[in-house]
């Protein structure tokens, strides 16, 4: 097949063409049924037209031309393999990193890699969590080759370094569906590195944090090769009763980024989501954090911060939803933006949807400039404007 150029909307015409052997075509895929559902929904309304994206500069993504060339797919692992990563994930692929410093950790730890290549992999059991959303992550479900994932067995203590890689050095769309299943009463810390590519990635990750478990997620977007990188990462988190989910997201400039997190919180849970984004040049970063309290006596804290320079753009859409049964919830939602350029734009939209009484719920959003008094204080100690400005930005992101 010759090189094929298409934008995301045009992709609808190619799902069944065989440009990729995706979960829709592959009736043996563990996600085949749900891929069909997503496809049927997409034929009715294309996700890129979803109103959720109205302030996300979606045209940058919509107009981008993906270049498919099935004859010349070349693997390039030069930027992928390192000795710190434990597990490497790409579309339909999951493997232990052969070069990691201590690769017998896998044998010692109660972890199961979920791959469609294995018999009785159980991946189809996760289909109910991946129903159509009307969002771009549906494209990942339809168009990924197969879902992959890893399952941590109950009562496990584990630190993991995960790389969401892109093995093929091409400009084609890359889709991933990843299942992360944290067993009951486990305590797991995951450092998740999102490898940038010269093109679009759409990734859907489902995190199941089982009863009494703790998941500490530290997500870092690639600091290199990001000038042409467009990334849509949608996380769906299910917090079972008594669980804790602590997430930290960090990025520094992407041509286009969407980091969407939808969290369902059941009773007696703790949720902390922290984001810090340093944006410059023409970077666009869009963050959505939706915390849905479905059970009582849980606590959630959301704090997303961005520093914007040059022509950078940031949008934040945050929602705390509290169901009628979720009494005793304590929730706080914050978004703070530091605008360092008159050409930069920050858009912030916090929402509270409260359907019960006896809760504590607050939100606050700010867009501010570098404080002149603070800079003067630093200047008065010999720190010049450049170093002082950098200190203020760094403090803003880390405070």
């Amino acid at each position, binding site marked *: 097949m010759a090189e094929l150029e298409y934008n995301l909307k045009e992709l609808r015409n190619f799902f069944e063409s065989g440009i990729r052997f995706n979960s829709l075509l592959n009736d043996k895929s563990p996600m085949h049924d749900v891929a069909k559902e997503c496809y049927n929904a997409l034929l009715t309304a294309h996700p890129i037209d979803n109103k959720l994206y109205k302030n996300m500069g979606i045209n940058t993504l919509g107009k981008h031309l993906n270049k498919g060339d099935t004859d010349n797919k070349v693997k390039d692992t030069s930027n992928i393999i390192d000795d710190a990563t434990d597990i490497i994930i790409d579309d339909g692929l999951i493997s232990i990193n052969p070069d990691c410093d201590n690769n017998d950790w896998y044998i010692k730890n109660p972890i199961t890699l979920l791959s469609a290549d294995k018999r009785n992999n159980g991946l189809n059991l996760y289909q109910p969590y991946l129903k159509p959303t009307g969002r771009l992550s549906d494209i990942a479900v339809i168009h990924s080759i197969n879902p992959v994932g890893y399952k941590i067995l109950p009562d496990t203590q584990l630190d993991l370094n995960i790389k969401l890689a892109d093995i093929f050095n091409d400009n084609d769309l890359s889709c991933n569906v990843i299942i992360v299943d944290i067993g009951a009463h486990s305590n797991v810390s995951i450092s998740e590195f999102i490898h940038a590519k010269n093109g679009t990635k759409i990734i859907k990750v489902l995190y199941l944090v089982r009863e009494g478990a703790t998941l500490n997620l530290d997500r870092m977007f690639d600091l290199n090769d990001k000038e042409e990188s467009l990334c849509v990462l949608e996380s769906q988190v299910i917090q079972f009763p008594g669980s804790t989910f602590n997430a930290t997201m960090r990025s520094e400039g992407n041509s286009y980024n969407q980091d969407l997190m939808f969290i369902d919180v059941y009773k007696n849970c703790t949720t902390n989501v922290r984001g810090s984004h340093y944006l410059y040049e023409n970077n666009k970063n869009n963050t959505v954090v939706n915390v849905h309290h479905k059970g009582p006596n849980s606590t959630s804290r959301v704090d997303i911060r961005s520093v914007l320079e040059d022509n950078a753009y940031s949008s934040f859409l945050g929602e705390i939803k509290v169901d009628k049964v979720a009494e005793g919830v304590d929730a706080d939602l914050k978004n703070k933006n530091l605008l360092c350029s008159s050409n930069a734009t920050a858009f912030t939209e916090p929402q509270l949807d409260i359907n019960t009484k006896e809760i504590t719920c607050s939100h606050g959003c700010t867009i501010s400039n570098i404080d002149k008094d603070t800079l*003067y*204080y630093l200047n008065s*100690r010999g720190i010049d*404007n450049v170093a*002082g400005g950098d200190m203020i930005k760094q*403090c803003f992101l880390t405070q």
Partner: protein
Amino acid sequence: MLVTQEFTIKVDNETILSDMTLEYGPGVHVIMGPNGVGKSTFAHALMGNPNYETEGAVEFNGKDLLSMETYERARAGLFISFQTPTPIEGLSNFQFIKQAMTSLDKNQSIKENLSSFRQSAKDLGLGAEWDKKQLNVEASGGEKKKNELIQLDMLDPQTAILDEPDSGLDIDAIKVLVEKLRAFVDKGDKTLIIVSHYAELITKLHPDTVTILDKSGKATQTEDIQVAYDILENGFNV
């Protein structure tokens, strides 16, 4: 040596202080004046606060001070302690002083810096973990003033302008303040300019000159220290 000639300070085109010709050499100098007369304005205008417009001339150790940016004035050896020090969340006291020391080319090892910082904090009765606390965040007024004194200690400028360094300090802390300021001046070739109406501080520091700022926006400097004591006893209206 800090010399002002016909130094005028304006805010939004309104003159606050005008035509001040003053001289501050090594030693102790006190600035006094009724509330709202512009004592802090004078101090911050010398430091280069961008909120103030200035006219006239100010020479600092032979250099044209008014042509310098604030950070350049600090690097030239000028220091100001703030009446209300600015809080910076996310920045620890020690990170701040470390960056300031680097900017001022005060090259000591981090270990030496930290040791000096902790000793200075200990002298002032601040907690053992003071170096890790965020700069002027969740600190009392007195603690913030002590923090300014630590900075004076560590940065060791040639000329220090202290804006009411005694306010917010308890009796014990004032004793330490007097000791530290005396020690600063006794290093020799140091100039200490203090805005204060605190009798004990003025008495113990034995000032060399007193500058009175009046409500008409004028400044009068004298070596007759009795003027300061008369003001302390009778106020400005006598």
